[in-house]
């Protein structure tokens, strides 16, 4: 099999293979020490917005980076092979060739495509010859209210079908009832089912009631072996917000400080404008550093974001000439 390396693979130094987070035994002592102050977190987000800004070439470069982090997503009941094929083509060629040339960018792809299990074969076919990852949502996405064995089987089936990334949803009931052991066991079982495929755990933070719950659930998912923690399914009223993101990033930082393992982060749902995408990148940069602005540790789950970024970049390029 010949592989065409994506832009990020070819150029970026950050593509040093990361050691996967193997997880830890559940440490409830650590979870119990978590202290989260929502009001202060919201204040930090307001302050940050006033302290960082990007313009001109810097804004363009950061938007290109954002494209490489997008999990280009189609998660609808009416998805068919045809629209998923279009999605895959777009993921491989997110910008027009003349725009890329004008920006001096040799080649560029999104981070992955993100689809339902049934459409994996279509994507495998459409992406053949590239090494663009296919991410499949799983475990009874979005509500996660399916029988446990069925959910584990769903993961195995998707991996067999060609998904190299699995976006699982946690059972929110385990968090709301404080059954942390059950949450840990569930996620650990999913990780085993994933095998070599990378696992993103969707917390669906809107349904977790408090930021303390978000932080604790983040820690436990990492202890259970998550490669990424992800905010939302995109299917509820409120999805990725910056205060929730900041809470999860602080958990990632704490986990890294304590264990040395780097876990990635994926906001999803509602990230539809270039400006919002830049805010997320700035937050990653400020809280975790440059390494976490690369698609090995940062993804954005979005469907319409790419269109807005494209518009911004087209405008920039046409202003050049």
């Amino acid at each position, binding site marked *: 099999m010949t592989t065409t390396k994506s832009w990020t693979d070819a150029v970026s*130094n950050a593509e040093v293979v990361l050691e996967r987070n193997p997880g830890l035994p559940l440490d409830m002592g650590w979870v119990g020490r978590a202290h989260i102050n929502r009001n202060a977190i919201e204040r930090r987000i307001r302050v940050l917005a006033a302290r960082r*800004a990007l313009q001109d070439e810097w804004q363009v*470069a950061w938007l290109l980076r954002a494209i490489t982090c997008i999990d280009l997503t189609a998660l609808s009941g009416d998805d068919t092979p045809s629209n998923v094929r279009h999605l895959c083509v777009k993921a491989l060629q997110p910008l027009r060739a003349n725009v890329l040339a004008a920006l001096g960018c040799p080649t560029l792809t999104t981070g992955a495509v993100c689809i339902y299990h049934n459409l994996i074969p279509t994507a495998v076919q459409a992406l053949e010859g590239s090494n663009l990852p296919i991410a499949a949502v799983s475990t009874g996405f979005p509500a996660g209210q399916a029988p446990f064995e069925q959910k584990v089987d769903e993961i195995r089936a998707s991996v067999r079908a060609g998904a190299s990334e699995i976006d699982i949803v946690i059972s929110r009931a385990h968090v709301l009832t404080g059954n942390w052991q059950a949450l840990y066991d569930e996620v650990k079982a999913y990780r085993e089912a994933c095998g070599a495929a990378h696992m993103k755990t969707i917390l669906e933070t809107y349904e977790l009631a408090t930021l303390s719950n978000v932080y604790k659930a983040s820690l436990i998912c990492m202890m259970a072996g998550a490669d990424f923690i992800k905010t939302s399914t995109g299917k509820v009223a409120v999805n990725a917000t910056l205060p929730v993101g900041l809470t999860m990033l602080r958990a990632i930082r704490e986990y890294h400080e304590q264990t040395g393992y780097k876990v990635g982060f994926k906001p999803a749902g509602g990230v539809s404008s270039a400006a919002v995408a830049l805010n997320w990148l700035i937050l990653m940069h400020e809280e975790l550093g440059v390494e976490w602005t690369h698609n090995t540790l940062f993804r954005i789950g979005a469907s319409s974001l790419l269109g807005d970024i494209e518009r911004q970049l087209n405008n920039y390029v046409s202003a050049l000439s």
Partner: protein
Amino acid sequence: MGKQIMEIFETMEYGPVLESASQARSWLQEQQPFQLFIGGQWSTPVAGHYADALYPVTGEVLASVAVAEPDDVEQAVASAVSALSAWGSARAQTRARYLYALSRHIQQHAALLALLETLDSGRVLRESRGELAQAARVFSYYAGQAQLAESVYAGELTSGVVVLCATVAQPFLQLVQQLAPVLAAGNTVVIKPARHASLAVLKFAEIVQAVDLPAGVVNVLTGDDDTLTQVLTSHTALASVVFSGTKAAGSALRKRLVGSGTNVQLSVVTRTPFVVFEDADLDSVVEGVVDAAWSNQGSLSAAATNLLVQENVATALVGKLRARIETLRSGDPLDRTTDLSSIIPDGAIDALPPLLAQASKERLQYWQPSWAEQGTGFPPTIFFDVAPASQLTQSEIPGPALLVSTFRDLKEALGLLGTFGNGQTVSIWSENINVALDAASQLKVEAVWINSVNLQDSAVALNGTDLYDYTRPAWLTGEALSAATAGHTQNKQTSGGSLADLRSAVAAAKKASSWSERTTQARAQVLYALAENLAVRETDFAQRIAEQTGRDHADAIKEVQASIARLFSYAAWAETFAGSTRRLPEQTLVMETVESLGIIGVVTPDAYPLLGLISLIAPAIAMGNTVVAIPARQASLVVADLYPLLESAHVPAGVINIVTGDRDVLSKDLAGLRELAAFWYCGSAHPDWFNTAQSEGRTFLRAATRIKHIWLPYGA
């Protein structure tokens, strides 16, 4: 160009996002040279001297600014005096409309004012801008206070000439917070901005002209900080001086103006210490420290210097703090991505080396971020494990330094705060509401921010921005002056009480401090009982007063009756003058608690010996203070008659202590005792005791209490 984009794509660095200052530069070019603003006109300084205002980043000359001399001061004060009667007696509505117009104009010119502040001082533009929005709100709030003055403050406000004097670069917002209540209460002012924070104030003077504020209500004098302050504050026509500067300069000023009849309000540079408990959200603490300790180049009065952290989380917190400081960006104040201005405030440049030398002498570890250029300026500097006895805790540090100390429990933390002698604000961090409120309630300060720092709201008074504070008579504002009267504490034997008697009175008053813990109802009961007992013996007391003062009996009866009424009033106030709770946007509660000060020293006047004594003692004890009083000479027999009354009214021992003797000698001795929280000296200057608007009510209650605001942001 294309190559550069891909380089940034790799490094993910930030680029410059520079704000244009051209609007401010062209305004300065058009307006300069700046004259003095006196009596609504721009007038050339008598001596014809000017100084250059420089942009500290480049050293470019921004404008030429007049330097005022003593003769100019004379003219400015004269203009404020002549504007006083019309402005002081203007209808509330008139003053309210002017203040609202000022608010509107500040809002319109906020962008220019912020740029001027940044160009002048090198302060980060983001901070200047944020504060300017607030400055407009402060004026509109006090427009409301002015509007309500006739009904809410009914006749209780008196006005005069007030000097607002700054010797350290004072943010424009802070000036506005002082100025707005002063104007709302009907005072006229002379503003002396600090040398490096005058351009925005000159723009404000232009606004004063634009809204047609009556000539002389606001005057602005620019010039040399030290000489101008000296001359201006010495003027005899002043009612109040509001001084912003270092603590040392502030206390020197207060000492100098003792007994001058000028009320002194200090807004001295003090810092907000952080107290961090083991159950705090440490990441959020770090952001709070970064916001507070390094705002305004570390020289803001709201900056932090002491970080007290519970021992078992100290290592974790310091680790997080260091990592965070590494990501701070120091640079051009006009750049939107700058956290810290590269400009070091005056006085800070030379301050660091001696600190480092002292630290190494004390074997204290310290840390600076890797981006700091060694040996230049004053980068953020953390000193670790600073013991209470360290010399570092004694110095006023003008730059962004943080002293970290550890504590084991709340009691020790409170002790450390006492030792560090910090200011009037504290930031407390704990996710346990019991711990946080326990700490907050035990602190004797003006503001406690729980899990936050420097929250402000124009409607929540801070640091004496109540209208009463600028209209309070000078004799009711004296704090204990241990420094001022040192040397006068030698015991001079007199016919009556001695220093030893005063000391034992103070000791008794201290022992009775549980009086403040009594319910307000219990305190009211005691005052009512005292009033009733006095009523029973009305004629006896009237006779005694008539004997001692030579006044006629009817007049003496009138005095006793007024005294009874006064006791009734303060019994009522004891249960009425209390705090409140306010809910602000962004999920924040502000609890205002009214607390006693401690021991108040009271010297009562000759005229109306009983009524004068009661008028001062009653508000003090109604609010939970204990009192050591030195009565008028003529009152000694009246006082002797009072003792049995106190007993039968069940005033607890030690709550009211009276020492008779040579009043002048005793007063000086009493003022020198450091245990006193306040000292009221009512000599020849006193109100008309029969006029209740002047001699009873909130002015006195405010003087007898400390208002503490506890800010409690919440959210799960």
